[in-house]
């Protein structure tokens, strides 16, 4: 573990609110420790801006340990930055060199309107889940946990899909602004488990319809979503979703 200090030039998208037209502003930062996380680097920038009486850069973040899915921005054209399977909060500055210019843009898509600077409105993803991303079971009256045996390999596959953090990087990176990986992961998780069987068809139809209604694009199998997904969720889940959707719409 060797700690270095680097100097950076930042080009950051600034936009006052959802109605304003934004533009890039350039900032320079000196003596950034390579042990910092990307968001800590932005904290330093914001402290500097505040001390100069300028408006700090607004960005979403919360857990800062890569699980809540709140943070995210596009760094030099890649959602969550250059490290694979890493959220922006877990990206460390040791992956950059002194003198680098970092272009930082919000997650863009028609379905994700920008609220301010790097903050976008990703509530469309919530509405996809609301359309059917659940098992309709009320509290109480569930059978004993062991009454529903699940093979461990199936549980593992379901867990792979379920590990989605809902950050929206898949949408941001998709050349078509599609939300197929997000939607596919949930449909796939529930279609793998026996708890999800009774509503399997309705779920696939409802979630895909909701996804289209929100203005997300179509999948042309570009694989960008999979490449930037901080949880490494496979596009196999999209194939499973396609299968589920075809089964539900053709076979009824």
């Amino acid at each position, binding site marked *: 573990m060797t700690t270095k200090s680097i100097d950076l030039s930042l*080009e950051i998208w600034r936009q006052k609110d959802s109605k304003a037209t934004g533009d*890039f502003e350039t900032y320079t930062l000196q003596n950034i420790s390579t042990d910092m996380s990307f968001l800590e680097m932005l904290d330093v920038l914001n402290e500097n801006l505040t001390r100069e009486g300028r408006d700090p850069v607004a960005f979403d973040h919360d857990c800062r340990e890569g699980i809540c899915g709140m943070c995210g921005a*596009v760094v*030099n*054209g*890649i*959602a969550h930055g250059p490290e694979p399977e890493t959220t922006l909060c877990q990206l460390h500055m040791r992956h950059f060199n002194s003198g680098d210019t970092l*272009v930082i*843009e919000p997650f*863009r*898509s*028609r*379905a994700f309107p920008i609220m301010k600077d790097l903050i976008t409105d990703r509530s469309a993803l919530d509405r996809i889940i609301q359309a059917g991303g659940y098992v309709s079971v009320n509290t109480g009256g569930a059978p004993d946990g062991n009454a529903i045996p699940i093979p461990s390999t199936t549980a593992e596959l379901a867990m792979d899909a379920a590990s989605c953090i809902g950050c929206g990087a898949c949408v941001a*990176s*998709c*050349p*078509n*602004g*599609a939300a197929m990986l997000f939607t596919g992961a949930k449909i796939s998780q529930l279609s793998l488990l026996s708890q999800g069987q009774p509503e399997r068809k309705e779920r696939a139809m409802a979630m895909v319809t909701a996804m289209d209604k929100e*203005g*997300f*694009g*179509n*999948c*042309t*199998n*570009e*694989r*960008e979503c999979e*490449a*930037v997904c901080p949880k490494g969720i496979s*596009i*196999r889940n*999209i*194939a*499973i979703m*396609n*299968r*589920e959707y*075809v089964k539900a719409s053709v076979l009824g």
Partner: protein
Amino acid sequence: MAITGCCLVLFLCSHAAGNATLFYSTQLFQAYADQLHSHPLIVSVFSKGLFLIFAVHAITGSLLFLQNRKARGQGYKIQTRAVKNSQASSTMIYSGLLILLFALIHTAVVSFGDHGKIGITISELFDSFFVSIFYLIAFIGLALHLSHGFWSMLQTFGVNHPRYNKLISRLTYVVPVFFLLIFSAIPLLFLFGTGQ
């Protein structure tokens, strides 16, 4: 897209099989064409069906392209891809348009030409250096289109399973290379004067 794409791949197979007769001789090819055209009903159903499928594929592809561009909204300042080797997938619309252009020219010359002497038409056609080069470029475009399209079709049909993925990833190379070789061999043969 996937359904029409699948039909078009099947068409390519039959077309390639027909073409293969040229490797033997122009005469055999002429015989194949004559045989084909002795069943006008089949030809008319198939050619109209093919035209329809092709049109649907091209139109939905273009609409999809426009729709998706709208869904993307504003692009990024830095345009880059996280996926390596994404040239084929990101140029589907362009390779598609090239194939469309080629198909128009090709049908104008070949399909609407005199079927009675199709073999001669072909050999005369490929005497021209530029026509041969145009055909070769179109076939490379087709191979590029297929190198994403074939896998993409399977993925859309939901065919993605660890057990078969190795085979599928091999096929994504084999299929386009196969068509590239078999189609471009013809102009090459004529170009280098070995076609008869």
